[in-house]
């Protein structure tokens, strides 16, 4: 297992988990989201190639009202 942070909450996940699998595991599978890891944008087209690393800080965002 590795330690990561998901939206500033500590989490554990299996080594070498793909981002695409992690998103399904966390309940984001069917939701319109965008992802950044360690403050870098991660394009949707790369979710199936990106393996999570120990210490990764993952931000997942959804649309909200804004000014």
């Amino acid at each position: 297992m590795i330690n990561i942070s998901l939206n500033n909450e500590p989490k554990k996940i299996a080594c070498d988990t793909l981002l695409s699998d992690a998103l399904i595991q966390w309940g984001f599978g069917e939701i319109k989201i965008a992802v950044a890891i360690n403050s870098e944008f991660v394009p949707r087209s790369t979710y199936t190639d990106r393996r999570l690393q120990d210490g990764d800080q993952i931000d997942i965002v959804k649309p909200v009202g804004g000014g």
Partner: protein
Amino acid sequence: MSYTPTLPAKDFTLYGETFSSRFLLGTALYASPQLMRDSIVQSRAEIVTLGLRRQNPNDRSGDAIWDFIKESGCRLLPNTAGCKSVKEAVTLAEMSREIFDTEWIKLEVVGDDYNLQPDPFGLVEASEILIKKGFKVLPYCTDDLILCKRLLDVGCQVLMPWGAPIGTGQGLLNRYNLRTLRERIKDVPMIIDAGLGAPSQATEAMEMGFDGILLNTAVAKAHNPPLMAEAFADAIDAGRKAYYAGLMQKRQTASPSTPTIGQPFWHQQ
């Protein structure tokens, strides 16, 4: 012979797209998603702003807002609200482009937490990076002329100077700077963004020659947001018409409007 007003029906163009409405409305702070939807309708806005935030996947409370925004058919203008560095703003803009499928971005780089004043240096740097990445940047900026010129230098085709700090409702705090901006930058669309609290303030900005108004709090926090949205829409239209019509010059002394010749009860002494 009947009189025909000469106000152009459609002359508000941003990044090559022409709009009928000069009112851009924010979608936050409403008491309910329904009030937001009704306010968008009454505002006659064709562009709405929105944002991105971390959310729990099981929290679907924001879904209605997003559904209503999509149904409105308005062009989406996502923001980078809350970003305090160039890096944060660029990353959030990239996330916005993917999720909303638009290159338009209302660029905010906050320089101070107290008044949410835009960081001019970060704003120019982030604008340059994003424009090179293909974004159409609408920067939320201060009313500083040199900042605005630098933003144009790096490729911004729209400027959005503040009227007052976000959410204050104080109106046009620095008329000298705003008039100077309009005088010195004549051919670039400029939208007064933030700080307006009353429709009369929007009218004043439009009378000064600004091209549009972007606001959120003044509508969302009104007792009747849809009615206030309509009031702002009418006020913006009135200000634009007045700008086209041409305001009279102010005078120091009174001047009678009714003819003085033929004044009754007047007798030469």
